[in-house]
């Protein structure tokens, strides 16, 4: 606790990187150690980190971030179709287009604050969704989703003499297939880089300025400082994170669907950030992991699995236990998530990170025999 902030950040970064890279082994016991879910953890972690740069630092609550995710996905799939199946151009373009899209929407939406800002972003996201769903179908292929074709031009691949033959190509990094574990490690490296970048932003004077925007924007304006460029920069950066995440979604699974832009997807990233702890560095990643875990694992529990789980009970009790618990798993996983969200918001307003910090402080107090060291519970300083 008495370490210099730089040292602390470095330690957190190293531990974070180690945990992310060891995820396939670490998450095996809880049934999450398979590539698709691990990829989702990493990708939505990036999405949530980016969202947190806007929401956690400036306090602007955007309800339309899924639009940037979707734009990133469409950009990446089009890059695959037109240029190359290599993921590098795809994610670079996805990030840039996500950022450009955010600059346009941010420029208009940031004229308002508070609830009006949220509603504006929500409206823009819904517009984008509807455009993708039914108006721009030549570009987006509507509800079916944009998919690869054997007959796509892929000019860069052709120029380098790469031929995929009669099968449908999948994205690969210079011969390394981007589905399965290599795809996860690719996302994991990007996640660690994004985490590092977010860390630098949090500690920089720019990050301090964003926090000042959050705490009292009027006062900033009265001192003669124009805050809008700062807010817009934060908005664009978080849009680029979202675009990058969308691009990675397409890298690991070359398909882009309009439902990625729906308001429920925008709401999901808000949930992730709040669940994990808005304004903290690690929180959003934890929140993203938790929600994706629920969505993929809890939703797959069916009565057969529950029956086996409650095997130790007598038969009548077993049936009763299954009847009650089946409400909360399978198609009822939203219910569990909702209950968990309520508990966290009521008892741990700082999200999971507050819980962890309290736990650490409690252990520290016990271990130190009631030492006088002040626990670092303030979310702003938490790693």
């Amino acid at each position, binding site marked *: 606790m008495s370490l210099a902030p730089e040292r602390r950040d470095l330690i957190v970064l190293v531990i974070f990187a180690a945990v992310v890279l060891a995820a396939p082994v670490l998450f095996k016991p809880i049934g999450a150690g398979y590539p*698709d879910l691990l990829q989702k953890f990493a990708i939505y972690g990036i999405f949530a980190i980016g969202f947190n740069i806007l929401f956690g630092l400036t306090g602007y609550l955007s309800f339309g971030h899924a639009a940037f995710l979707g734009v990133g996905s469409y950009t990446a799939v089009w890059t695959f179709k037109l240029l190359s199946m290599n993921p590098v151009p795809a994610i670079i373009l996805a990030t840039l287009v996500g950022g450009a899209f955010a600059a346009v929407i941010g420029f208009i939406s940031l004229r308002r604050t508070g609830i009006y800002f949220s509603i504006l972003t929500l409206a823009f996201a819904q517009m984008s969704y509807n455009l993708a769903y039914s108006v721009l179908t030549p570009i987006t292929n509507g509800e*079916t989703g944009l998919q690869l074709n054997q007959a796509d031009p892929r000019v860069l691949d052709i120029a380098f003499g790469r031929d995929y033959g009669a099968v449908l190509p999948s994205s690969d990094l210079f011969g390394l297939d981007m589905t399965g574990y290599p795809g996860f490690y690719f996302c994991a490296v990007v996640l660690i880089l994004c985490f590092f970048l977010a860390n630098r932003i949090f500690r920089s004077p720019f990050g301090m300025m964003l926090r000042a925007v959050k705490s009292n924007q009027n006062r900033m304006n009265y001192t003669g400082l124009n805050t809008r460029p700062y807010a817009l920069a934060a908005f664009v950066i978080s849009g680029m994170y979202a675009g990058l995440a969308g691009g990675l979604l397409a890298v690991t699974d070359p398909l882009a669907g309009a439902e990625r832009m729906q308001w429920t997807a925008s709401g999901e990233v808000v949930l992730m950030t709040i669940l994990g702890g808005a304004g903290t560095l690690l929180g959003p990643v934890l929140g993203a992991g938790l929600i994706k875990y629920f969505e993929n694992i809890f939703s797959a529990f069916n009565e057969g699995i529950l029956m086996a789980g409650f095997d130790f009970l007598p038969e009548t009790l077993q049936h009763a236990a299954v009847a009650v618990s089946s409400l909360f798993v399978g198609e009822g996983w939203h219910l569990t998530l909702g209950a968990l969200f309520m508990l966290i918001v009521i008892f741990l307003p700082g999200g999971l990170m507050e819980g962890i910090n309290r736990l650490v402080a409690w252990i520290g107090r016990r271990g130190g025999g009631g030492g006088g060291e002040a626990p670092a519970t303030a979310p702003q300083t938490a790693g």
Partner: protein
Amino acid sequence: MVRRTYARWCGRRGAERTPPTRFTSQAWAAGYTNEPKGGTVTLGFNVPQTGAYADEGADELRAYQLAVEHINGGGDGGMLNTFTSKALKGDGVNGKKVVFVTGDTQTKSDAARASAKRMIEKDGAIMITGGSSSGVAIAVQGLCQDAGVIFMAGLTHSNDTTGKDKRANGFRHFFNTEMSGAALGPVLKNAFGSERAAYHLTADYTWGWSQEGSIKKYTEQLGWQTTAAVRTPLGAGDFSQYITPVLNSGADVLVLNHYGRDMVNSLTQAVQFGLRDKQVNGRDFAIVVPLYSRLMAQGAGENVKGIFGSTNWHWSLQDAGSKAFVKSFGTKYGFPPSQAAHTTYCQALLYADACQRAGTFRPSGVGAALAGFKFDGLGNGPTEYRAADHQCFKDVLVVKGKEKPTSKFDVLEVVEVTPRAQVEYPASMLGGELGPYNDGA
């Protein structure tokens, strides 16, 4: 001491590190994705449990469970007793007991693919089946082709599933909009004449577009006009804003290219708006629902009386296969199965039978056993899995909402059984390429 611990640790590590299977199995055959090693084989049932098609999804899951029971030798055997292929003996498949995992597609391509990936990567599913939306079916079919597992399409009616977007690893038992159009055309002509003006309301995705195209094609051949074709979002819930313009459009037939709860809602609202009591151009206004299902008809209640449509199968059919299926489904669940349940039950049985006949679960082997396979006794009469596009060809049922239902399940009556020859088309007509089978890793 240190050395001994280290040696022991090394020994344990060595024992753990089993060589990859592809080197241990027979040299002439590399492994394939999720090759079953133990005493069980895992199938993945990926159905909508939430969203506009949730009712169909629930019925599909019931049918899958019933099929697994029958394949493993439980229950009364259902259609295994009437199926012309006698390869399955009620002791699982290739000596392995069939187990399954389930997932929710949410009627969304993204969610469906995530769920299918979980089944393939985590649960080791060797085959994915299900889907109640063509958009989802096409997305999951592409995924299964990439992953190297077989996809047995559930309820998907778009031409594209075995047309433009067909894949070698994908197979469809259900019929498509082209067949619906070909079967409905003559019946509509008899019922409504050849001088009609049709107004389409179409679910805005691959299936809706496909059905709108097919119905337009066949009704315009009869001499009908198409006044307008309006696209509505999937799962819209309220269709009143789309139905109001129909009243003043001059059209005298409304074609509802909707399915599931969408169809229940749009049909109910169309009837409530008094469309059926209207007279336009001196003719009674008519509504047509090209793809019908008993579940939907039940949902729409009174409103379906006298409305024409087509269906893949209906529980009131009197052949031995249908009767056996209705009996065992009814005994287990207490009500008759829907067409969604029927097609998914058939798909599970056909897959298991093909594996048994091929003696392997390898996708290319199973595919070869399914392609061109001719069979009977599964409720649709003589049926063929056409090798050129992995589409089943069989008779199509034209049905009508019953005027005097005798029970709440007895809501449809079969008007005509259109013979297979009349609905058949060349495989090249719909485009697309099967490509090679993919066995995966």
